[in-house]
């Protein structure tokens, strides 16, 4: 059961409050600080009062009858989910402790799931070199250390750079990891599958990560054949704003990473005439170019 109060923010917040109370460190101010930090926007109206009165968990002096700091054993749901993760090929990248899960039934198995539109040339999570690079990068991120990386660029050029690793980005569609790193006043994105060698740098200052350059595209769409829902769901992972123009027409503005412009052109083309880009002109030009070429093939 997923929707249960034992996983709730209120229980979690109460647990933190009680931990402080058992330690003898709780004050009225501390209680309020914990609620503000861990709970929801309006929880201040409920939790402090509940702890002291209705729930009978705190005495008037902010001590508690509990004798030990609260802790919750792992639930069956959590253990079954963890067991399911142990069957995922990507688990090789991590070194999770499998002890304690031996007799647990997985919540699901990989055979039950089909990622039907995922690209087939994703990363090889069984490759020993790939796993080693992933772990070196993960450790470097955790330890705030620079890395020296040798990799093949998109143009098959071999390069060797010292970078500051910030994030490991995973694309569900591509089934690929990319390292997002700072260095040379740039924001670098390096596919892990292109890395040939990766070692921690001996020393070196941290290099800043440049913000991704963003662009927007605005299009109008007519809600025919359920286009509105298909389009809005398809682009739902991007920051967007939608306005209704009339009963059947909508205007959508999407914000996207400039590096993904060609991908955005292709994705918008996939909706055909249901979507009409209105700005910017540079984006329209890219669409027009492809349509024109296609017309030439048609004739």
């Amino acid at each position, binding site marked *: *059961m*997923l929707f249960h109060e*034992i996983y709730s923010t209120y*229980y979690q917040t*109460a647990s933190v409050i009680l931990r402080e109370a058992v330690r003898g460190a709780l004050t009225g101010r501390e209680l309020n600080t914990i609620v503000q930090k861990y709970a*929801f*926007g309006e*929880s201040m109206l*409920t939790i402090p009062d509940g702890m002291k009165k209705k729930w*009978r968990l705190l005495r008037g002096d902010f001590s508690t009858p509990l*004798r*030990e700091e609260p802790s919750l*054993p792992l639930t*069956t*749901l*959590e*253990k079954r*989910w963890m067991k399911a*993760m142990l069957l995922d090929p990507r688990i090789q990248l*991590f070194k*999770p*402790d499998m*002890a*304690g899960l031996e007799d647990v*039934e997985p*919540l699901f*198995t990989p055979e*039950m*799931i*089909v990622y039907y*539109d995922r690209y*087939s040339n994703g990363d090889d999570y069984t490759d020993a070199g790939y796993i080693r690079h992933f772990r070196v990068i993960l450790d470097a991120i*955790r330890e705030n250390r620079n890395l020296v990386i040798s990799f093949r660029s998109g143009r098959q050029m071999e390069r060797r750079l010292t970078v500051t690793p910030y994030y490991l*980005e*995973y*694309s569900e569609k591509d089934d690929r990891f990319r390292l997002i790193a700072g260095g040379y006043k740039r924001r670098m994105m390096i596919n892990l599958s292109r890395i040939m060698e990766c070692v921690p740098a001996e020393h070196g200052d941290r290099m800043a990560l440049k913000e991704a350059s963003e662009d927007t595209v605005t299009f109008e769409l007519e809600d025919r054949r359920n286009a*509105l829902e298909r389009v809005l*769901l*398809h682009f*739902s*992972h991007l*920051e967007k*704003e939608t*306005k209704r123009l009339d009963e059947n027409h909508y205007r959508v503005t999407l*914000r996207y990473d400039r590096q993904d412009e060609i991908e955005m052109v*292709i994705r918008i083309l*996939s*909706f055909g*005439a249901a979507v*009409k*880009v209105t700005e910017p002109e540079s984006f329209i030009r890219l*669409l027009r*170019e492809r*349509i*024109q*070429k*296609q*017309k030439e*093939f*048609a004739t």
Partner: protein
Amino acid sequence: MGYSELIKNFSRIRAYIRSFYVYGFRHRGDFTEKSARSYDNERRRVESWLGDYMKFGQDADGRRVFLSVDSRSIPENPLYRAFRTKSFTDRDITLHFYLLDILKGSGGLSITEIMDELTDRLLEFEADDLPDESTVRKKLREYGSLGLVTVQKRGREKVYLLSESPVNLSAWGPAAAFFSEAAPLGAAGSFLQQRIPDQFDRFRFKHHYILNALDSEILYELLTAIGEKRRVSFTVRKNSVTVLPLKVYIGTQTGRQYLLAASLLGKRFSFYRVDLIDNIKKGDICEYPPGLEQELADFCSHVWGVTGNNSSRLEHIEMTVFAGTEEGHIVERLEREKRCGSVERLDDTHWRFTADVYDAFEMIPWLRTFTGRVTELKCTDQRVPDRFWKDLDEMTLMYGEDTNAVS
């Protein structure tokens, strides 16, 4: 009853969050399914949980509230917060903390011992409603089903023990952070994450459809039913359905999840959108009809996406694509995106994709992504090329001629 941040039932809020997130243009008056007061309460709750991501717009029709987030820029799906909002009674939370505290390190206690200890602890508060034994038993039984408590026999007596957690959670930090976002039922992983100190927050997720989190309860029922080979009953847009669930199809480009199921006689396969499934109930265990697994494998090898069924005939489709000698990336695209199709080289610059699928019509969006390169398109379902070329004509009219076209 007054307003509360917490909710008893998830299905109602599911529709509101979905609307705020997907259809950000709706005004208060557009939410006609329930009363305006219901809207006000649900909006207030969502704002309370997800205030950082709520945005407001003003136009001629009034104020709009919507959720907007670039899921690539955050380490954790904020919609998981909605699963941490289950309401409870005062007694629930009181018993929760006292029972766990009493059982911790006790080596096992009988119900009488638990009741004595509980009474001692609660008597100091000015309240006269001490929980009775049957209530405590019920709570212990519930916690047994959740895996928090185990029951053992000590002589003729039943004793309750706190379950042990021998798992080293600190070794799960990055794995839990990753799979909470990149695996099905990540909400369960997010519960786990809450337990891990110093959570790892340096993963980012591209093409990440966070909305699927709202269907986690339905997905949980479906996946456990598949594992147990149980039939399931549910409603889809008010139609009642009872089927044998087989697989879950997840779109990494559409933001949708589907159930692939067989009719009870196992002769017909169909897809159901998970976000439209409601009122789900698991039924009896049933053996797969003979030959089902082979028929399923055959069916899956001729499905492009998530439409079609095995009672329709297979359609054959061929698309020839131009790729210049320096345009290996186009061929690479065909190869990685061909799914159940195949790709062959015709000459130095032409490549042919072919497939036999139950529903070729659903391929049209993908075919359009090759606009500018399609030299030939043939399909036994003539509607497919007809639609492709008709759309092209419409787009030509929409965008006009390019006076600066690059040849």
